[in-house]
């Protein structure tokens, strides 16, 4: 808890220091990336389940809130959890049959699912507005405070969501389930021999991961007020994966750091805008070859070692 506050406190002053509306908007988007990266990290980093269609779950959250709001006037605060839940249900639907298959096959199944979702949103003109998307999605209203074009309230909303997510995920990673996830990543066969119900645990991870994407999607929809299928393409899935890989797979702070770096970097490299994706690709190759554990990956191992030592000293005393 202390760590989360220490990590996020500096960011909460950002709107006071920088009044630039464009920067505010950018930082809010980066916050959404942080949410997505932390969510994907649960599947890819903790459990070793490569999800290449993560943008689809983000899209499902966004479209769920948008459709509920446009057709039934559903308020944001109700749409937010529903978006997450619907996304989680789809996560289970795709996860239950496909999680049995080997890891690299899951990657391709999710990739296929991601494309199906995007094409479906594109073609179901009657409900989703097709390529033009949905417009006029309502912004949140917080006890009479109406969110507007100004991104600052969104920034704080995302910041709070990041804090809650980080807290819950940290609790999760220290729990029995979290240990089981890491055990599965390291050696699934050994984990199942130790009595871990691998299927159940993997589904938990996959569902949690989809839920977070759905939440992020609902926030995104309310912030943009317009969503189109193009915002949720494969490039986004890979971008989020690159964030997790860069920061360090299996490390919550790593994922957040990766999102921060890759979210802000393109703005700093404005002159090289067209080289952006080229650099991302190169970065992924180089990271995998020279530092597969990511920028902060080393810390996880150190922490794991420390926990072991504590356990040993507990046993001694």
């Amino acid at each position: 808890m202390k760590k989360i506050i220490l990590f996020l406190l500096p960011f909460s002053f950002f709107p006071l220091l920088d009044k630039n509306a464009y920067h505010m908007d950018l930082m809010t988007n980066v916050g959404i990336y942080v949410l997505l990266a932390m969510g994907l990290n649960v599947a890819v980093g903790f459990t070793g389940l490569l999800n290449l269609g993560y943008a689809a779950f983000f899209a499902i959250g966004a479209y769920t809130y948008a459709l509920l709001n446009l057709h039934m006037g559903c308020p944001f605060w109700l749409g937010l959890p529903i978006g997450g839940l619907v996304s989680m249900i789809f996560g289970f639907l795709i996860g239950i049959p496909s999680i049995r298959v080997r890891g690299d096959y899951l990657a391709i199944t999710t990739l296929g699912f991601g494309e199906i979702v995007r094409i479906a949103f594109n073609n179901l003109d009657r409900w989703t507005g097709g390529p033009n998307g949905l417009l006029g999605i309502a912004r949140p209203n917080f006890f009479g405070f109406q969110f507007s074009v100004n991104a600052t309230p969104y920034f704080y909303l995302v910041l709070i969501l990041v804090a809650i997510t980080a807290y819950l995920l940290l609790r999760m990673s220290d729990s029995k389930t979290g240990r089981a996830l890491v055990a599965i990543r390291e050696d699934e066969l050994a984990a199942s021999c130790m009595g871990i119900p691998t299927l159940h645990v993997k589904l938990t991870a996959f569902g949690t991961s989809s839920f977070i994407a759905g939440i992020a999607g609902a926030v995104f929809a309310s912030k943009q007020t317009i969503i189109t299928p193009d915002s949720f393409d494969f490039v986004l899935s890979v971008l989020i994966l690159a964030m997790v890989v860069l920061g360090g797979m299996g490390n919550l702070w790593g994922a957040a750091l990766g999102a921060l770096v890759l979210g802000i970097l393109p703005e700093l490299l404005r002159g090289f805008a067209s080289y952006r994706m080229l650099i991302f690709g190169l970065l992924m190759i180089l990271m995998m070859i020279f530092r597969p554990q990511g920028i902060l990956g080393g810390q996880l191992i150190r922490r794991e070692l420390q926990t072991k030592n504590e356990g040993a000293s507990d046993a001694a005393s």
Partner: protein
Amino acid sequence: MDSQLQLFLQQVLNGLTIGMLYALVALGYTMVYGVLQLINFAHGEIFMVGAYLALTTIWFFASWLGGVPFWGILIALFVFSMMGSALLGAVIEKVAYRPLRGSPKLTALITSIGVSFFLQNAVMLLYGSKEQSVPEIIPNVQFHLGGVTLSLIQLVIFGVSIGLMCFLTWFVKSTKTGMAMRATAENPEAANLMGISVNHVIRTTFILGSALAAVAGALFSMNYGSVNFHDGYLAGLKAFTAAVFGGIGSIPGAMIGGLLLGIFEGLGAGYLSSEWKDVFAFALLVTVLIFRPSGLLGENVPEKV
């Protein structure tokens, strides 16, 4: 012949044409998977690079060597795009995949996504992000066979693809290198102990697969008359579907998978809706992966301890 049957046969024929190309690309996926157990995500990009190399050859002939007959240009563009893509495949293997030999599957898969992104954007920067139209070099001749129309380009696709598949089957079955490839796919360590240079075999596999993908890319771009840096992603994914459908690791499986996928897509586009054409392929992929991950001809190998 009644028109219903004509339409059906025409769709099957069109589907077979594109299926031939899927099969050529699927062979690369399946061979690399056979020796390395790696899903080479960047393989679709090799296909796309092959198409651009073919386009470059056509430009070269158009501006420097006028008056060459079309089959001369055709041979030149096949040779050039095959050599260029084979070289690229070998370089990718050496630079990106070899350092990761023995690391977890996930690591190599993520690297291949990185390679794919890199190539896509490198091509985009070199050739521009707009769709490039490919000049028509194969004369637009149509043959009518009992109400079904067959164009010359389709004939070329059939001829070249069948020829290459026969060559590959012979190569893998009868040559020493082919035998070494099969041995490596069976058990790399044992193959190494038998004096087979596994690195050499893997390099050969990448070269062969890339050359086949390049031919497919060249034919694809000539068939549709245009090429875009995005093309490799979709074509690669469908070819991968074909490889999985046929049974990944199996060479005849990739061929059959490619042809069947092409026919499904042709019929689906003809009878249902072309908007959902891509969804059929992905839905097939997801279904096969879930219910029969070993594919039509693949062996059911349980995960090793």
